[in-house]
């Protein structure tokens, strides 16, 4: 019993870390309607400012704190509201989530351009003696806390109580929630929704800044990745609070820390259970909460009742344009494609880039199915690609099965996993489904990938190039054509599905689930098919990728690739096959352009991250929107030309 109490108490300070971050997430969600995965990126901004002023320039603690938390924190919130989220109040939760994902990708890289890549050791907290020989330790019987933990405990308590009181007793709390529900209705009551929204963003950003400065000393360096990991771990606490209750979120955070402490205390070290459960506890808890919590399952997206006045999203450019223009485009595309093939066949480097583009295009087609057709955001497509890659690698190495067959088996395994995964999460929609996919990706990474029979261990498993009958795809040229054929085949499959019953069912479900059900559409079946197909396509791409690289290594399929790929594809176009191909080409070409003009590779996530913000305005992607404009322009010119050549010119009246 004494041990149990000991483990419980020791888990509390760590639980407060989760609690503080989770409260920040819930605050942002309640006051802005944005599930702000970029919260960690905002925290990183303030942590970097604090480090720069306090450590590099040796400012006094109070000045550094005021600048980083009280000035920069709210300023970041003001900028985000004024330039991005103010215009997204009536957008769907998914659109806002995508915008937050874009910021998660872009903000750290932007800060990094200023902060630099050099090591930032010696992170100090706001507690005066938090370093080295002056490290403050306060003993409470058998237990002890350090200064940073004391500061975190106090801050978590103050923030929790303060925010609860604000929401419960103040008019500003009510107004903030009202603005989230319906900004236009709120304005009808004479409330300035813009001002309230700005205040909400500044407040949540202040909390992010506070979390950044308080939690930075947990790490050896100030690094954005640390804060992202922290956010990910805190999601479970936010889900425990149903994304709305501050006290429950606090309880969830502390509970998570305590549970971790108990598991660490009682699970035998290096037991299978400990190896699986201890590092993945927050993700397992998140996943279980999403699946089993009735409150989250029943929760439906809050929509502005007046949002219906917004025009419906426009149709695809390919549908709207004239057949003549379509065929002209196709012929032009074919000529360009043949030209590109002729070029890359004579340049080994560009050939490799072209192969990579083909493989990424195949993986990105999985987004065309799950996001473009089913209207869902999946944050685990890189995981499905990993399943394909690891299955391929394991089968090749263990059973000596022909490589091409293992790639197909890998795709099937990924499809089966995707289908099975979709069953428990079917009832979830919008951001909850996105979160479930994220939890799945993290669980896969922390539980399964470390296992030798999955990830292959410390030395990645080798995967040779396929040989099909007499054709050896060992050379890059031959492999290029194999990838091209697979991409074309998958593209046709996607087009067939989109035009077939499943695609139409999914279209109907996107419009109105209830109406779709009333005409006999089975939403579960359609979504399972979409998930399985999408996962299978990603798995196929993953297997191809492993074959191309020659290895299947976990680093190539890390969770943040799923985040970046979403941002990339939705920016350029998730609804069409061309969109996926454009995204793959963009991914490869932008990297190459940056390299050639001597710019840091950091600019790529900045470009695409900021590009994702346009998702709300152009859910079909920037290029698709541009294509529609171009089509309209060309059509106008075409019509003008037709009119001038076919319309009879009226005769000049005779003067006689």
């Amino acid at each position, binding site marked *: 019993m004494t041990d149990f109490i000991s483990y419980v108490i020791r888990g509390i300070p760590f639980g407060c870390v989760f609690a503080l971050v989770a409260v920040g997430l819930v605050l942002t969600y309640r006051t802005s309607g944005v599930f702000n995965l970029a919260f960690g990126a905002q925290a990183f901004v303030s942590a970097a400012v604090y480090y720069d002023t306090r450590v590099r320039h040796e400012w006094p603690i109070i000045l550094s704190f005021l600048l980083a938390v009280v000035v920069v924190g709210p300023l970041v919130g003001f900028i985000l509201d004024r330039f991005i989220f103010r215009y997204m109040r009536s957008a769907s939760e998914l659109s806002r989530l995508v915008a937050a994902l874009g910021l998660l990708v872009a903000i750290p890289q932007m800060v990094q351009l200023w902060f630099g890549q050099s090591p930032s050791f*010696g992170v100090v907290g706001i507690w005066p003696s938090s370093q080295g020989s002056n490290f403050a330790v306060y003993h409470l019987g058998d237990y002890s806390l350090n200064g940073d933990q004391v500061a975190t405990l106090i801050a978590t308590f103050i923030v929790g109580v303060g925010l609860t009181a604000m929401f419960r007793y103040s008019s500003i709390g009510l107004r903030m929630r009202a603005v989230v529900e319906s900004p236009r209705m709120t304005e009808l009551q004479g409330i300035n929704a813009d001002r309230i929204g700005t205040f909400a963003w500044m407040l949540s950003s202040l909390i992010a800044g506070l979390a950044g400065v308080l939690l930075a000393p947990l790490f050896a360096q100030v690094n954005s990745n640390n804060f992202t990991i922290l956010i990910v771990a805190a999601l479970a606490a936010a889900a425990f609070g149903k994304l709305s209750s501050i006290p429950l979120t606090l309880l969830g955070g502390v509970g998570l820390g305590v549970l971790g402490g108990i598991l660490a205390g009682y699970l035998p070290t290096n037991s299978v259970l400990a190896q699986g459960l201890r590092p993945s506890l927050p993700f397992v808890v998140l996943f279980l909460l999403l699946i089993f919590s009735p409150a989250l399952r029943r929760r439906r997206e809050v929509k502005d009742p007046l949002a219906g006045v917004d025009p419906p999203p426009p149709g695809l450019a390919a549908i709207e344009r004239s057949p003549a223009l379509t065929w002209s485009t196709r012929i032009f595309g074919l000529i360009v494609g043949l030209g590109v093939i002729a070029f890359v066949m004579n340049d080994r480097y560009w050939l490799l880039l072209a192969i990579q583009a083909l493989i990424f295009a195949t993986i990105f087609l999985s987004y065309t199915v799950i996001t473009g057709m089913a209207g869902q955001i999946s944050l685990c497509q890189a995981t499905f690609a990993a399943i394909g890659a690891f299955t391929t690698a394991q089968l090749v190495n263990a059973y000596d099965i022909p490589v091409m067959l293992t790639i197909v088996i890998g795709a099937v395994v990924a499809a089966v996993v995707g289908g099975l995964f979709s069953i428990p999460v079917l009832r979830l929609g919008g951001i909850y489904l996105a979160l479930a996919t994220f939890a799945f990706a993290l669980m896969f990474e922390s539980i399964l990938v470390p296992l030798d029979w999955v990830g292959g261990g410390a030395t990645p498993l080798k995967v040779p190039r396929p040989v099909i009958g007499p054709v050896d795809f060992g050379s890059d040229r031959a492999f290029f054509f194999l990838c091209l054929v697979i991409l074309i085949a998958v593209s046709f499959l996607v087009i067939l599905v989109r035009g077939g019953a499943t695609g139409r069912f999914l279209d109907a479900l996107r419009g109105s689930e209830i109406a779709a059900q009333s005409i006999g559409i089975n939403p579960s079946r359609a979504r399972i098919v979409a998930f399985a197909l999408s996962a299978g396509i990603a798995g196929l791409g993953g297997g191809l990728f492993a074959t191309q690289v020659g290895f299947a290594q976990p680093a190539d399929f890390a969770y943040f690739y799923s985040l970046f790929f979403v941002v990339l594809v939705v920016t350029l176009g998730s609804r069409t096959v061309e969109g996926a191909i454009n995204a793959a080409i963009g991914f490869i070409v932008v990297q190459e352009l940056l390299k050639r003009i001597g710019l840091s590779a950091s600019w790529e996530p900045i470009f695409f991250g900021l590009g994702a913000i346009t998702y709300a305005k152009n859910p079909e992607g920037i290029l698709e929107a541009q294509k529609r404009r171009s089509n309209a322009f060309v059509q106008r010119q075409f019509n003008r030309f037709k009119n001038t050549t076919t319309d009879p010119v009226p005769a000049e009246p005779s003067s006689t």
Partner: protein
Amino acid sequence: MGSHGLKQRSGQRFAALATGLVVLAVSLGGGYRGAVAGAADNSTTTTKPAGGWPKVDQPGVTGDTIRVSGVASTTNPIGGLYGSSFDGVAAYFNMINAEGGIYGRKLVMVKKHDDQLGQNQREVEAIIDQDNVFAVLPVATIAFFSGAKKLADAKIPTFGWGINDEWTGPPNFFGHLGALCNGSECPGIGLPWLSKKLNKHKLGVLAYNVPSSSDCLDGIQSSFKKYGKSANAKVVYANKTLSFGVTDLSSDVKKMVDAKVDFVTTCMDTNGVLSLAKEMRQQGMTAIQYLPNGYDQAFMRKNGGFFQGSYVITQFAPFETTPQLPALKQYLKWMNKSGAAKTENSVIGWVNADNFVTGLRMAGPNFTRQKVVDQLNTLTTYDADGLLAPLNWAKQHTDKHYPRSCTAFMEVKNSKFVPKFGKPGKPFTCWGNTDSTNSVTAVPPTNRR
């Protein structure tokens, strides 16, 4: 490291994945560049013969330049920045070019490719196909060296940060550690030896649940399985279930206190060892930490208060070696001239460049890629003028178990590194072939450059 080394390769690679580059900031200076055993005399490469230098028909070689390119992880989302390897190569090239170059030709770094995160296959293709270079250096990759096969097939002399298995085998690859053999196949002798030396008997080992980190822990357990009896030490607490990023170590420290652990080692990044040190301080645990990836002046300057009495190691002559090695003086002089940071990676870059130039000198004025490779592989003692423990390139490519087990130990005192167990000017502690023995005392350590 080599076949019986203390520093587990997988631990190094984990550190690469997790922490980023290790900064070494020292204030040393001087000037001398010693001869390399077996290499041609320096003057033969700078003194123009009567008929002029012969024309060399090799990729990347012009009448007045020898071109090279390299690839290193310069930017990526998870840290691990190896870009300073380029600085070491550039500084060495500046030194050689100031002396007149090699065979009348300047050494030129054509392009610095950014591996980012595992993009080195693509960058290697760019080097082979577009850069028109004679050799590739440095190669310093954060993840797997997936471009290795392309470079091996192209038979291009390649020099780099050789912590991955891919560096073992191809005759044209010259990693700074030579052949690699770790884990249960080649249990390291160094840590059990250190335990015995410090009279520590109960070891605690912590690792993350990622393969490279847990593999490192397995290797340490294998070491103590083999040498523990002789060292009178054993692993009494091992945990490889820690989550990477942010993890609560309070329960682990409590258990180590209960198990009376007196020596702690980790396969973790700087975040992990710092969290551990703080938790140990909080719970009053006084065990010594061994930090396999802790040789980082900037880190220790800021956090040394938590690591008083801890031990770190390097596989190259540390900057604190006294009297200072001439090669180190030379390195510092040219690094200071370039204004670049003096880091572990830049030292390795410098060593890579030295290895390359050694090969050029040995190959003679009519050098070819193949000659450089063949000549280097006849070298039985290559030590980069004392910066490395001697490597036998005649065996490194063929014998994975070739005994090359040397380590430079340092103790942390007042936030600084103090060399231990070596002799003046000879920082390395080395062991003989340990394949056939389970005793840490049967093969007494030797001290050599």
